[in-house]
């Protein structure tokens, strides 16, 4: 399942960050997932949690920020949410490239990303060490 390769890429990038910032402890990473990618959120989190168990970033949380799909139509110049298809056997309605306004072929303008947005970290100090 490709959620695993995406999770691996994510972990690799975070480990790079951790190595370059040894004084910081990552507690959360926020990842934007576009609706058009149809990357499965739960599977991605599961893969992430499985991979990080024995790593410096163990205990950190993956938070997914869904990005809604948007299309732009070169025929009628519509710009906005796509037409969704209920009939696809995908659990939830699937965004299509049919222009909701004129019915011709539109292009995706938003919702294709799969990207790290930000990392949340702490800077462990002596007090935090004592409390723990």
């Amino acid at each position: 399942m490709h959620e695993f390769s995406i999770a691996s890429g994510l972990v690799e990038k975070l480990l790079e960050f951790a190595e370059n910032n040894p004084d910081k402890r990552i507690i959360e990473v926020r990842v934007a997932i576009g609706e058009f990618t149809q990357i499965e959120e739960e599977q991605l989190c599961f893969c992430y949690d499985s991979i990080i168990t024995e790593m410096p970033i163990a205990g950190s949380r993956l938070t997914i920020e869904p990005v809604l799909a948007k299309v732009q139509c070169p025929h009628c110049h519509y710009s906005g949410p796509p037409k969704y298809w209920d009939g696809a056997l995908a659990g939830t309605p699937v965004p299509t490239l049919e222009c909701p306004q004129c019915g011709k072929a539109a292009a995706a303008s938003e919702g294709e990303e799969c990207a790290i947005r930000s990392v949340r970290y702490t800077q462990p100090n002596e007090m935090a060490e004592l409390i723990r």
Partner: protein
Amino acid sequence: MLEASPDEIYDIELEHSLLEANGKLAVENRALLDKNGITAIDFMGAIGSGKTTLITKLVGKLKERMGVAVFNGDATTSNDADAISAQNVPVVQIATINGCHLDANLVGKGLRKIELENLKMIFIENIGNLICPAEFPLGSKARVVVVSVTEGPWMVRKHPHMFLGAQLVVINKIDLAEVMEVSVEQLIDDVHTLKPDLKVIPTSCKKGTGLDEVVDFLVAV
């Protein structure tokens, strides 16, 4: 779960696309192909859809007209590569072992392994999987998705993402549509519900139906 008091938490923006690494390599592959005047076509489809037979037939029709090579992604065997080798065109087999998709890195390595000079067309046969390859462009000019009527009536509905990224859909084994009780028209309709202008060509590799139309489409890409 790690916890920290609110005054100890910091956020840092790290805008980084997780698809970027493969995407960059795909762009490099495309630049190399364009520089050499070569069109690469990425063939995707489930195991048993007929990708290898289709590619073999297309190679047979094209090889007299232009230099053609085939990259074959196969998880464990060289069966498919052997079948295409019989056409006497360069074949590069890419062993993905446990990989569920070809990636631009592997294709890039393949491009550096063959003589590009007299080639006009490279067919890349992706892994027999309709989910994973969608996220991983290879640097091809067009993606062809192959489905066959023997896979039943729901293949388009079950893999919408794959079809959104395609430039051509081949519906194969149409000679068996009646006995399978699968409607080719419904499959075409499903494709156009997802992407209205997506070209669909019904074929029967066994009988030769539709193959010339596929050749014409690919040559014009």
